[in-house]
């Protein structure tokens, strides 16, 4: 595995996992904006996507042209096996840490 997953990278990967077959740039941006209430720029998002692809966590392919975007094709992203392993490793580590915490973390 190349490097560690950053917080934002993890967020992007999980968002893609949530979107399933509809994971492309604008949709991811929209999801992150709605769910995490974070305003990020397309440039930052695409840079992260490119880096994740380089690290082998993502694969991408262009879809078919549709009428909605002036005939422009979308680039769909899918998670790779490494990404799934990395995410689940991350989750189990977090669960471990949460359960071992010395005081109550689920603060209200």
């Amino acid at each position, binding site marked *: 595995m190349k490097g560690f997953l950053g917080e934002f990278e993890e967020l992007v990967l999980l968002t893609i996992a949530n979107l399933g077959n509809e994971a492309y740039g604008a949709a991811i941006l929209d999801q992150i904006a709605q769910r995490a209430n974070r305003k990020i720029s397309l440039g930052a998002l695409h840079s992260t996507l490119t880096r994740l692809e380089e690290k082998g966590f993502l694969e991408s392919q262009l879809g078919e042209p549709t009428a909605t975007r*002036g005939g422009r094709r*979308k680039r769909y992203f899918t998670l790779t096996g490494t990404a799934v392993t990395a995410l689940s490793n991350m989750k189990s580590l977090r669960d471990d840490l949460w359960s071992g915490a010395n005081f109550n973390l689920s603060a209200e």
Partner: protein
Amino acid sequence: MKYMHKITQQLFHLFGGRAEVEDLLGDLDEVYYSSKERSNRLVATWNYWRHVCSLLLSYALRRRAREASYSPYYQGVSAAILKSYLKVSLRNLKQQRTFTFLNVVGLSTGMSIALLALAMFIELQNFDTFHPHAEEIYQLNTQVIKDGNTRLLASTPPALTYAADEKVSDILASVHINDDFFPVVKKAGNELALRGLFTSPDFFNVFAMPLKEGTVESLSEPDNVIITEELALRLFGEAAALGKVIQTENWGSLKVSGVLEKFPKRTHLRFELLTGFQTSAAFNARHRTAQWTDFKSNYYFMRIADEKKELVLDQLERIGLTGQPAMDQANLSASFQLRPLTEINPGISIEDEFGLVFDKQTMWFFFGIALLILFPACFNYSNLSITRALKRAREIGIRKVIGSQKKQIMEQFLVETVLVSLISVALATVLFHLIRAEFISMLVGASALSFEITPQLLLIFGLFALVTGILTGLIPGAYFAKISPLAAMRNGVEEGKVSISGIRKGLLVVQFALTLGFMMGIGVLAKQYFTVLNYQTGFNKENIAVLPLENHNPAVVRSTFESMPEVSAVSFSSSIPGTSLSGLNYAYFTGGLDSVRYRQLLVDDHFTQQLDLDFVWGQGLDDKHYQKEQVLVNETFMAKIQNLKGNGDSLLVQLANHEEVVIVGVLKDYNHEPLNERIEPLLLKYAPEKASFALLTVATPDMLSTVSNLEAKWDQLFPETIFNVKFLEQEIEDSYEYLRTGMKILGFLAILALVISCLGLLGMVIYLTENRTKEVAIRKILGASYKSLLANLSGMFFKMWGIAILIAVPIAYLIFDKFMLGLFNKFNEGVGIAEILLSLLLTLGLGVLAILWQTHRVVNVNPSENLRNE
């Protein structure tokens, strides 16, 4: 939206080249429309552009651009590819020797002035940095507001600074300085005004100026001076200076109690001797007293730790408030500022300045001139390189066909230009070395600059060359990178047109206009110079030798020299006619209140006769004693004093020292001072014993032997003083030194401009003729005559010159006639036709030679050769 799309597409192309961006554009659109639905159009548009900017600069686009570029080669610049660039460049430069030569000569001449400006700027950055804790030393400045006018002064009220010494504990060290100390000593008949400072031993706590001999504390005693090593050498030669006494005219005798070691020249402190405030009781009293309003020439330097700066300034302001009552009386208010010692040079020039300050404005002006010279040189380089397009089109075509990218062609040209500019800077450094001594002698205050060539300076010169090279290489580089390989391979350059673009023509015109301007400047100054030398000043200046008297008895001098057969007349004077007079005096009518300012000349009874001065009225002086002293005045004096309308005898005048004198003669106005001074009221008094010079009229065919005869006599009389003869005409000539300096500066600039513009012209002519070789050959075969061909080829240049002349002559005329001569004082009718024509002729002559040389070469070749070679 359509426009936005287009612009975005262009931008993506610009930043990302061939990168695949379809999906990015789609995303942008989608985000835009959804944002528009949610809020309004304005917000959406704003967001859209924000996203575009972030994408343009994003790693995503960079990565895609890199993937999309078609070249399989390594993208960065490696050592191997640099080596290859260098090799090709060197081969090219070697192959085109003429062009390399023209370029190097042009660029190095252009750079030489820029190097001078650069060196000066860097040296000024290092001014006063050699003192320990230099960055903690500040000069206290006063901002004075009076009648709504704000003035910033370098000086400070002594009342404030002395109080600060006692009350402000955070001042680590401080010194009071007053620069109103100019002891005058006599040397070889000339009065030398020395630059001195009043200060205290504290001076040495603030500034790093170690003593060679003597003690620092001696400054606390009156009439002690500490002198610089140079002054010691000048006054006492190699002999030990410590303990010697300097006899001054205005400050009595001063004892040398210390000699400073040689200190770096790069300081704004300018002095030859230091003395304590105690030296002048009267001065000291005035200086010490709680003086708030009259504080000219009083300066204060202090050392404060950096973090205490604000605190100290605050305390100073508070002390300043105690002086407010005194200031209110003078109707002014003041606030105080700290000026770091290291920022004085180059800095902002403020009023009542202390020491040597090169202000930033002058520096920028200097840089402006340097750029004015450098820019045409760079432009010539670009022009000459593009001129080579024909020869190099094939090379570039082949490179492109094998897969070289625009960027790589560009890099090749940049390397080439940088190489040329590095060679040029080496040559320019040699030029810089040659002209710096001359430059130092021309610029006021430049003696504080050393212009030493240090490794640091060389490094900066190298960097300068690099930047110049890159900027210069961009234009030809971009030009060649754009050439289509197909066109280049097929028939040379696509743009193989015979015309030269408008911008290039315009720049050539500007260059010529500039050269013409400088040339005319020389002509104007030369004319002024010769006019003043031949001007009828109203006195006889021929064959008069000037001997400094050195306090010897004039009667002895007269009797000795008058007996010589070569000497026809002897007289004495306190000043050499034709040079500046010093000192001002005031005269009144008896009982009157108004005064006339006049200049005084101490002479003997032979003076007026020897110089052939004309009388308007009365007679000359004689050596008898009268109850009231007799004086001569000039017409201006008479006119001024008449205006005072005194009652009583209009010939009785009271001088400032209450001495009453009688006017016995009125002289016709003559120019006793240089022509740039107006004729001032002049008063001649009989006092040969106070005269400084003996004037000897020598009539002889053999000047050399006469001079040696005079010297023999002098040595016999006064073996201890050196015989030091000058001639009146020479002395007068020397007093117009500034005109010669002006001529030198303009001459130098003119030569630079001329060299550069001629090279530019030559490049253009070569470009033109090379493009038209085939045309000329065909014309020749068809029967065109030599003359018509020459006219055809060079016609355009004459047209351009016509424009240059039309632009340059009126502008130069206005500048020189109205502005320059106003500064220098106009001695004749100003700019004449003769010097305009002469400068035109000189400039054009050189240009014509350059044109004819090249066109002749093309026209003279056998046409069949030309046609075959194409």
